[in-house]
């Protein structure tokens, strides 16, 4: 059974290789091949899952050693896998949502001439993401980590002819590289400390390491998580990443890849548990991003960018709760899974809307679409209710647990975090209601596209609606299922551990508070966007709105702090290289040349004068010899 683990990764990888190397011969059915391989991987996942359920809770983790990857003295990197409950959760999420999004893309990308390539990249992404979650050591995890970065790069920049897409792809990769630097330093630190970077020795040895060293490792891992999960301060790439095709945004930039940071932190629980300073940093990053993303989400008119802000904010929740330690790990993963369902569903819905509206993305040019796209409306609506935490739906259960855990942190910190989370709930409800109202309700504000074609909104084909429906079902029921008897908690506990916090507020109070905050957000949004007409041209807005529209000036900041000094430095160095170093060398050459052209004059071309100098020289030599002898 364990030999299925490598096949999980191998199936989509083979798909990617086949589609990329196969050439135009595969154009006709390549997309179905890719979808089938994704589904096959899901099948393997299910088989492994049922196998795992058949074993007792303590014996569920299994490993599979494939081959020795980099054997060097004292340095042992293996290609070996570990499948435990945490990995299993991710495997099912990735392959399940992944398969649905493959299916959706069959319809969405039907008219793209480079569709085969698109599916190859999607398969590549699946393979890398699966590798990331089933790796048994940090270096192999790093391979998956950068692999998903590559797939993300390729897919964001899929429409390469658009300069904005190419720039966004490059930006995503480079910002992620900063995070990757953190991961590689963390691995090096582990190697120095433990002589290994495989999970078992690292986690086993953590208790013997100094706290300072563990904090350093933890902070570096956090840097990595910030990059991949678009957390402050490495958040700037996610908004631009929406340049990619919408299925990509749904799969990579909402449901799976961006949550890898949460996986990394949860996986490294043994390190973080012993490094309270690093945990505090994690919590702060989570709380700041939670609010940052929510604020940005309120101001965006581009439907995908609004959802991207929301993704950032929701992952902020997960990071926050993961930073709380054993109180929170399981809830972080639980929210991650429910978020995977509803956010993927929301993005697919957004894609469906864009599909019907000539690829228009501005919500100010939507309006009243509920009658034209009923399936999209219903599925999107269910996703919406789930994300704002409407009682009974998925998001309600998972978010509620997070807020509870935040209060349970205890002390002033607990209050601050809990309030942050509550404010986040209000803002989430506000911007999601705004998205809902602007898109599906109100009057039609449709604009003709660049070629002057008026939009004719229509429902999307079956291949697109079926995944949306399935994801909507997940958004509705997953949370309840997980919360039932704390089944999700029990499932994950052997891996992540669990501790009950002591919340100053009763669970019911928290639930009521959360619901009240949510309703306040919905109400405010309705007052602002539901009752009055929405202008097609965005109003000027307050300074905060204007700043939020520009992602709270993140790009301006990066530009001023990094890009401009960087290019100045580069220009200086280019000058230094050609004028300084080379100038020195060329100057030396020129000096020698100058001196020798002076000396050259001595060679006047007259044999007589050469003879005279020879004669003089001989005389001199003879005279010297005689003189020397006489003394």
């Amino acid at each position, binding site marked *: 059974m364990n030999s299925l683990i490598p096949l999980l990764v191998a199936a989509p990888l083979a798909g990617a290789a086949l589609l990329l190397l196969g050439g135009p011969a595969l154009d006709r059915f390549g997309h179905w091949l890719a979808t089938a391989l994704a589904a096959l991987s899901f099948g393997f996942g299910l088989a492994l899952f049922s196998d795992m359920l058949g074993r007792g809770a303590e014996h569920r983790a299994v490993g599979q050693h494939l081959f020795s990857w980099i054997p060097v003295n004292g340095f042992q990197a293996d290609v070996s896998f570990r499948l435990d409950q945490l990995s299993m959760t991710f495997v099912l999420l990735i392959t399940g949502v992944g398969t649905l999004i493959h299916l959706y893309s069959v319809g969405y990308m039907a008219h793209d001439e480079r569709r085969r390539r698109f599916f190859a990249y999607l398969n590549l992404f699946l393979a890398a993401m699966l590798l990331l979650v089933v790796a048994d050591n940090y270096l192999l995890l790093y391979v998956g980590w950068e692999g998903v970065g590559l797939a993300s790069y390729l897919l964001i920049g899929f429409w390469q002819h658009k300069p904005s897409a190419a720039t966004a792809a490059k930006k995503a990769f480079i910002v992620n590289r900063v995070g990757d630097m953190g991961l590689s330093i963390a691995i090096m630190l582990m190697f120095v400390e433990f002589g290994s970077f495989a999970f078992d020795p690292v986690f086993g040895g953590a208790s013997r390491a100094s706290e300072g060293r563990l904090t350093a490792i933890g902070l570096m891992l956090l840097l990595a998580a910030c990059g991949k999960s678009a957390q402050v301060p490495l958040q700037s790439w996610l908004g631009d990443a929406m340049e990619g095709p919408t299925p990509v945004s749904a799969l990579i930039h909402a449901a799976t890849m961006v949550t890898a940071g949460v996986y990394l932190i949860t996986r490294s629980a043994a390190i973080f548990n012993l490094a309270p300073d690093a945990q505090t940093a994690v919590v702060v990053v989570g709380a700041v991003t939670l609010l940052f993303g929510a604020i940005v989400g309120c101001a965006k008119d581009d439907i995908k960018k609004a959802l991207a802000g929301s993704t950032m904010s929701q992952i902020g929740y997960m990071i926050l709760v993961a930073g709380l330690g054993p109180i929170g790990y399981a809830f972080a993963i639980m929210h991650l899974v429910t978020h995977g369902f509803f956010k993927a569903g929301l993005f697919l819905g957004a894609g469906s809307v864009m599909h019907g509206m000539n690829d228009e993305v501005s919500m100010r040019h939507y309006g009243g679409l509920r009658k034209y796209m009923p399936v999209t409306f219903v599925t999107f609506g269910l996703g919406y209710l789930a994300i704002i935490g409407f009682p009974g739906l998925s998001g309600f259960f998972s978010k509620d647990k997070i807020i509870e855990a935040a209060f349970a942190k205890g002390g002033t910190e607990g209050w601050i975090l809990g309030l942050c989370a509550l404010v986040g709930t209000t803002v989430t409800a506000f911007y999601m209601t705004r998205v809902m109202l602007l898109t599906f309700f109100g009057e039609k504000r449709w604009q003709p596209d660049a070629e002057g074609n008026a939009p004719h909104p229509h429902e999307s084909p079956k291949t697109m609606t079926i995944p949306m429906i399935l994801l909507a079902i997940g958004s509705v029921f997953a949370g309840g299922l997980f919360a039932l008897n704390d089944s999700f908690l029990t499932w994950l506990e052997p891996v992540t551990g669990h501790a009950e916090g002591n919340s100053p507020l009763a669970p019911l109070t928290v639930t009521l508070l959360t619901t009240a905050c949510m309703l306040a957000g919905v109400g405010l949004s309705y007052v602002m966007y539901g009752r009055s007409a929405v202008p097609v041209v965005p109003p000027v807005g307050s300074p905060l709105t204007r700043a939020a529209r520009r992602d709270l000036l993140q790009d301006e900041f990066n530009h001023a702090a990094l890009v401009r000094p960087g290019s100045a430095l580069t220009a200086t160095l280019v000058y230094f290289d050609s004028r300084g170093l080379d100038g020195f060398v060329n100057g030396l050459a020129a000096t020698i040349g100058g001196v020798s052209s002076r000396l*050259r004059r001595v*060679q*006047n*071309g*007259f*044999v*007589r004068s050469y*003879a*005279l100098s020879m*004669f003089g020289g001989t005389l001199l030599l003879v005279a010297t010899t005689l003189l020397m002898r006489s003394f």
Partner: protein
Amino acid sequence: MNPVNYLYLSALLFTIGASGVLIRRNAIVLFMCVELMLNASNLALVTFSRLHGTLDGQIIAFFTMVVAAAEVVVGLAIIVSIFRTRHSASVDDSNLMKL
């Protein structure tokens, strides 16, 4: 006769040859002056041989003559070919190698 006088003669001949090389421009004359210098040294060598009663000097003189003969062959050939192309035997006219 005192063999030392031959040495004086040799020095005189060498000086005449050397000044000729330094002063004259005609390649042929120059060449003759070089020959004069070689012969002056030959004379000195033979004289020394006589003075010391060994054969070394005479043997070296033979070598000198052979070299001088070879030199004349090559040198005259060069001079003739230069004269053919440039219609002049003046050494000052051949300054192509000068930069």
